[in-house]
């Protein structure tokens, strides 16, 4: 079940309203994306904590065989 880039962005945006979010459809199949999220709230977190927070914002869409999103490559950081 494909998911649209703007839907992914909207989900992440709910948790990170002020983030700079860039979604790229890697394979053009609505199933393999990369997302770069730059947000001030990441400054005090390590990478695992940052990406856990992003995964949480996706509310189970990544989960297992029933997840709509097979592959989302994440890059997270605080603004320079």
């Amino acid at each position, binding site marked *: 079940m494909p998911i649209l880039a703007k839907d992914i962005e909207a989900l992440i945006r709910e948790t990170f309203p002020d983030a700079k979010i860039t979604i790229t459809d890697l394979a053009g199949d609505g199933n393999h994306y990369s997302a770069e999220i730059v947000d001030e709230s990441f400054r005090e977190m390590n*990478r*695992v904590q940052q990406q*856990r927070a992003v995964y949480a914002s996706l509310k189970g869409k990544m*989960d*297992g065989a029933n*997840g709509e999103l097979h*592959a989302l490559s994440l*890059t997270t950081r605080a603004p320079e």
Partner: protein
Amino acid sequence: MMVNNHVKCNPEPFAAKHQTYEIQTMSAEEQIKETVTANDVVLFMKGTKQMPQCGFSNHVVGVLQTIGVEFHDVDVLADPAIRQGIKDYSDWPTIPQLYVKGDFVGGCDIISEMTMSGELGELLDKSGVSYSKEAAKKIREGNAK
């Protein structure tokens, strides 16, 4: 894997009956905990290091093998309980997952970033895990543009 785990923790003779019982009742969480404690470096992955079944798992296997890190692989596709169990254990929804000295390090993206930044090497140094510093440097230089 379960049998191996068990043999390690129950060396005493006479354990045959007991053994079966333990295998059945050892929870995924307990199995995972024992695996990441007994091995310095563990990769939970789809497929095996000889035959990865997913590009992301393949990528991390490639990094570890290139820099010469000895690691224990756990194929999550072989056991649905472990596949779900490791996600709960790490609070992390995707596979692969790398553990060093019992601590969760990250998934494919984090390992890639740490490889390029040199942080993976620092972590291995700090953890007393041997690897080829030269190969790690080559990866960084080869990918730097």
